[in-house]
Structure formats: C-alpha cells, structure tokens
C-alpha cells in the first residue's frame, strides 16, 4: 500500500493526535515524506464533498468530522455520555494552564480551596502531569498541562491559549 492511503488508515485508527515523527516510525517512511503526504491528504479532505478533516492539533494530526456535520453527528453520539469537567476542575486546570509550572499551594492561594481532589482527577484524566519540583524548602511538586489537555480543548499548542482578560 502507498504511503498516503496508509496514513489515512493510521489516522483513522489512532486514538489521539499523532505527531509526524510517530507516524514515520509506525509506517517506516521518512518524516519528510509523511509530512508531504499528510498535507496532500489534508487538502483532499478539504473538498466540500468530504465529511471529515485532517486536523493539526496538539502537535499532531488527527482525523475528525467537519464542524458542519456536528448537528447530525451529535444525534448519533447523544447516548454516548461525555464526561464533563466540573467547575472546580476547569478553574484548576485554567490556573495550571496559564501559570504553569505551579504548585498545589499556588493553586490554593488563587482559588482559596485546597485543590487535592481536583488535582488527582486531572492527573488521572491525564490533563496535567508532574513536571518537576520547586527549588524551595519542602520541594513541592510542580504541575503542568499535557498533550491530552491540548487535544481535549482542540488546541495546537500552549501559545494558542486565549489570553485571559485579567491576569489576577
């Protein structure tokens, strides 16, 4: 099978955005060729008679439905309950995303509540991860966001995070 159809199959099966180098590794092709074919594939899917798109998110490529199909596709996945993030989780995630790396105490200072349970949740959902330890007494753990966080919110990278109105 040629590289382009192979890439189509790989993107179809992948459960998360795949970086070009990962795809190259799987297919045994050169990264340059992979990028080239992906771009062609991307352009082909842009045609108005296609219902899917090759998205470029979280530093990887992912096959997804086009937004115009959303209303119809929603009907199909209505039964498929999505986990929604709690308000607390969203707030905490926001703090981590904009202020990373942050410690538990940094978050507590901003939100006024101990974030322990929420942090655990976010860690388990792989939205955040331990990125190191702060060089202060007690060496508290530092948290940062993950690729899964970018993927979930459809962001290409952290620079795409919208600037918050107030930085307080």
């Amino acid at each position, binding site marked *: 099978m040629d590289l382009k159809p192979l890439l189509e199959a790989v993107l*179809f*099966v992948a*459960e998360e955005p795949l970086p070009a180098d990962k795809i190259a590794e799987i297919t045994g092709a050169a990264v340059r060729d992979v990028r080239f074919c992906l771009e062609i594939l991307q352009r082909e899917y842009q045609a108005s008679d296609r219902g899917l798109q090759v998205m470029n998110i979280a530093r990887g490529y992912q096959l997804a439905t086009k937004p115009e199909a959303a209303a119809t596709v929603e009907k199909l*996945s209505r*039964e*498929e*309950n999505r986990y929604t993030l709690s308000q607390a989780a969203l707030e905490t995630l926001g703090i981590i995303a904009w202020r990373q790396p942050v410690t538990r105490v940094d978050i507590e200072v901003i939100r006024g509540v101990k974030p322990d349970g929420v942090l655990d*949740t976010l860690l*388990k*959902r792989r939205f955040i991860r331990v990125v190191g330890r702060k060089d202060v007494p007690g060496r508290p753990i530092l948290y940062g966001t993950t690729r899964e966080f970018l993927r979930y919110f459809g962001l290409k990278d952290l620079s795409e995070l919208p600037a918050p109105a107030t930085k307080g």
Partner: protein
Amino acid sequence: MPVFEGPFALLFHLIEQAEVDICNIQIAEITAQYLAYLHELRELNLDVAVEFLVMAATLLKLKSKKLLPGMKPSADEAEETAPLISSEEELVQRLLEYRYFQTVAKELRLCEQEQKRVFVRSPGGKTMLVNPSAAEAAGAGGLSCLLSAFQQLLSRHEALPREVETDELSVSDKMKQVLKKLAGHRDGLDFRELFLERPSVTAIIVTFFALLELIRRRKISVWQDRPFGLLICKRNAF
C-alpha cells in the same frame, strides 16, 4: 500424549492414524485403540471425562451387538441428555457430521482472521466516551447517576477528617480489585460497598475511574433499581 476435547476428536485422530475412510471403519479395531488410549490416560493418573467413558461403553455395545445381532439398545434416555448411538451406521453418520462442522469451524477461522486485518475506530477512543451499549445496560442516565453518587460520596468524605494518603493503587490495580470483588456477587453489589474502608479522596477517585473504565470496556454494568435508588454494580463475566 495428545489431548482431545471430546470422544469424537479422539475417534477422528484414531481413524486418521489408521488411514481408513470413515465409512469403512472396523468397529472392533477402533474400539481396541480407543480403549488403549483411555487406559494410557489412567496410567498417567489423568482424569478421563465422562463423555469418553460413555463413548467407550457405546463402542463396546456396538461391538457386542455385531456379535449378537438380536440385542436392542436401551430406550430409557433422559430428556436433557444426548441420545446414545445405537448402530454403527449412526456412529458413522455422527462422525461425518462432526467432520463437517470441523470444516465449518475452519471457514469461520478464516473469516475471523480476515476480519482481524480490518480495523475500526475503537469505541470511546477519540474523546473519552462511555460505551452507548454499556450506558443502555446501565439504564437511563446510568453514567450520570454514577457521577452523582460519586459526588455525594466525595462530599460526605469532605465532612470527615482528612487522612494521610498511603500506598495508593493504580486504576488498573483497582480495576482488578473491583472485578475480583464483584466476582463473588453474581447478582450485583451495592456501589457503596466498593468504598467501605473510609478511603482517601484519591482512592475514591481511583475506584471511580476504575469503574468508568470497566464500564467502557463492557466488563461491568451499573444500574439503579429505581430512581434515586441503590446503585448496583455487576460483573459481565466474559
């Protein structure tokens, strides 16, 4: 010592070894070989399944019937058991049918292998979605009741003094633990039973995610016996 799943598999092996056509088997010969195999199993102290013994008796009966053509097979067969083979022709017929379904199984194996080369998107892969069929099995709002039960549990927990968090289990460890616990409760288990030992917040969350993952993988079902009633978890025993 080859292992055979049933008496037909063994008979087949013996017939193939003797290189005779099924329609031309010598009942005396095949019976002798069959009994010799069972004898060997006994020598090795291996259990001989009852089906093998029934077949041995049948073969012996067929053999003696040949010597004494007047003998009739016993007619008292229980309702829920397979009828005994009463003639050599019937034995041959059964063997042919058995062989036919061996080839059917081969065809199915080919289909299976071909289908293994074709991949579909895995359920819940792209976004963390709960399996719709699992959600259906869970009844209306199965997941949302799990969530609210979980939140209640957490809020109840917040009223308790904090504990030191020690040796936390991973979600996959917890999944195994939950499955093991549910294995002992075939009719299902109250959701709260999974959180009995006043767990830490992390342990509650780990258990919760273990439950979600088990639902997603269709290993367990969760449902409510009535609105706002008990939340029951049950293992799907694959």
